[in-house]
């Protein structure tokens, strides 16, 4: 765990903030899709650190800079949004298993909704989809938000991929969900050479599964869940995995993920409201 100093923490869209943290050089370079557990150094409450995906990362001769994009969703992120340059935060990470580029991929489709842009932004920035001599055009980024003022991370993507923007209210780009555009393009993709990387709200993830069902295109999706520790000890961040003919098991989002194969994860069942072992 390391202590970093905030160099910048500003609102980039209503309710959305971008934090830049200066960290010692010994902080390990994150892989795209990895996350950190972050907590204000002076924080009493809330008690637990919050998991945030890496939005960008820069290494300099004597320090490094971690960028985190977050949406204010509760007490923890509300506290972060009030932090000022010079304030200190403790950072544990990088943690988890990120995205992997399967062999033989020539075309990358990135699908993000809202603040889900963060890990895919880092994926693009780190150049992962353009290894093996691909042109930037080989990556298509489907980026969606409720409205144009809630689109974040767009600036960093320019020139690195073919950007397709969607908004729910039509205030910019296609009017409708990102999956509309993906649906149009998916039939033209060779499943042996294509991969989908996704991160976004549950309804977006739920649409991806049937959309890709009849194709053989692999899809890696970054998930979030409440976490206490981030290192596999608390078992709090369980998600159900399985599939037809397979036993349902729980995996840890922090350690086995946060990136999972879309076809492995099971839809979240409504609460069964039982009382048992705790």
């Amino acid at each position, binding site marked *: 765990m390391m202590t970093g100093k905030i160099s910048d923490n500003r609102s980039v869209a209503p309710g959305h903030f971008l934090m830049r943290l200066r960290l010692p050089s010994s902080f390990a370079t994150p892989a795209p899709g990895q996350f950190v557990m972050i907590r204000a150094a002076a924080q009493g409450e809330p008690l637990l650190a919050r998991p945030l995906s890496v939005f960008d990362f820069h290494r300099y001769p004597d320090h490094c800079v971690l960028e985190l994009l977050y949406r204010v969703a509760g007490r923890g992120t509300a506290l972060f949004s009030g932090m000022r340059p010079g304030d200190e935060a403790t950072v544990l990470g990088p943690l988890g298993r990120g995205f992997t580029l399967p062999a033989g991929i020539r075309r990358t489709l990135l699908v993000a909704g809202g603040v889900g842009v963060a890990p895919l932004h880092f994926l693009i920035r780190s150049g992962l989809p353009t290894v093996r001599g691909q042109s930037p055009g080989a990556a298509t980024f489907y980026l969606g938000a409720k409205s144009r003022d809630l689109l974040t991370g767009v600036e960093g993507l320019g020139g690195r991929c073919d950007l397709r923007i969607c908004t729910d209210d039509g205030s910019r780009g296609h009017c409708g969900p990102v999956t509309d555009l993906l649906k149009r393009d998916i039939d033209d993709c060779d499943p042996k050479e294509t991969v989908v990387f996704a991160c976004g709200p549950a309804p977006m993830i739920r649409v991806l599964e049937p959309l890709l069902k009849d194709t053989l295109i692999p899809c890696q999706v970054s998930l979030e869940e409440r976490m206490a520790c981030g*290192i596999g000890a608390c078992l709090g961040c369980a998600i159900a995995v399985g599939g037809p003919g397979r036993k349902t098991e729980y995996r840890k989002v922090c350690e086995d993920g946060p990136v999972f194969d879309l076809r492995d994860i099971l839809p979240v069942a409504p609460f069964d409201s039982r009382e048992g072992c705790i």
Partner: protein
Amino acid sequence: MIATSGENRGDSPNLSVTIGRLDLKNPVMTASGTFGYGEEYAPFIDLNRLGAVVVKGLSLEPRSGNPPPRIMETPSGMLNAIGLQNIGVRVFIDEKLPFLREFDTAVVANIFGETVDEYRRVAGILNGAEGVSAIEVNISCPNVKKGGIAFGALPELAAEVTRGVRGETDLPLIVKLTPNVTDITAIAAAVEAAGADAVSLINTLTGMSVDIETRRPHLANVTGGLSGPAIRPVALRMVWQTVRAVKVPVIGIGGIMTASDALEFFIAGATAVQVGTANFVNPTAVLKILDGIEEYLVRHKMADIAELIGSLKTG
């Protein structure tokens, strides 16, 4: 070179304690369910420094645990309903214990079951396992043969489990008590009479939290176990009461986040402490607590932690 006058210069205070027949080099343990099987924390801290590692609760067969959401943060604490997910006692022995054996730290196997027979069988399997220093029995689980009432809720049920496990093992036996009872000292006395070498308390307090927008509970299990600083005063009170009710050592657990929190428990009479939720907040917390206890003893010129244990001044 200027000579310093402190009596403790070069002499660290003695932190070793004895829990029944279990000798610990220091009284700081990790609480079950908050420290995995130890290996999760090895990248962050030197496990050799710990008094003991208490591993995640083990059952006869593997358990997949409860559906998510499993945790929710609450004021000064958190609720969890993990559902005792674990790999099972045999896989623990084969796959996790060899790693823990490499360290000069006591390994306490926390066990649970749904019937007395299950408890006995898990204890019997652990009895022959090299590298297990003691068994901690979690009696907070529902007894499926007795309509789901927790073993730890009634003195006779708690004693029955303790006797059953006692009959299967020569290892030091710690019984971990639930606070969700009318009188924890009655349970403590019952397990002491049934052969427990020590008691540890408290386990989590049953709690609940609701999302008012969806009107759903925050946990899929509806209720969960509350841990963290929120429960510390309750835990401290119960430890203090229990110390006066039994002769066996009492291990204090409940919301210990700092050395000063731990010191309260020693002063109230705890022979050792377990650190739980703090491990989630900071993986190095347990070592900071250990260092802080030592510093306190030096500052108060105590040569042995025994001088502190039970030194509460009342009246």
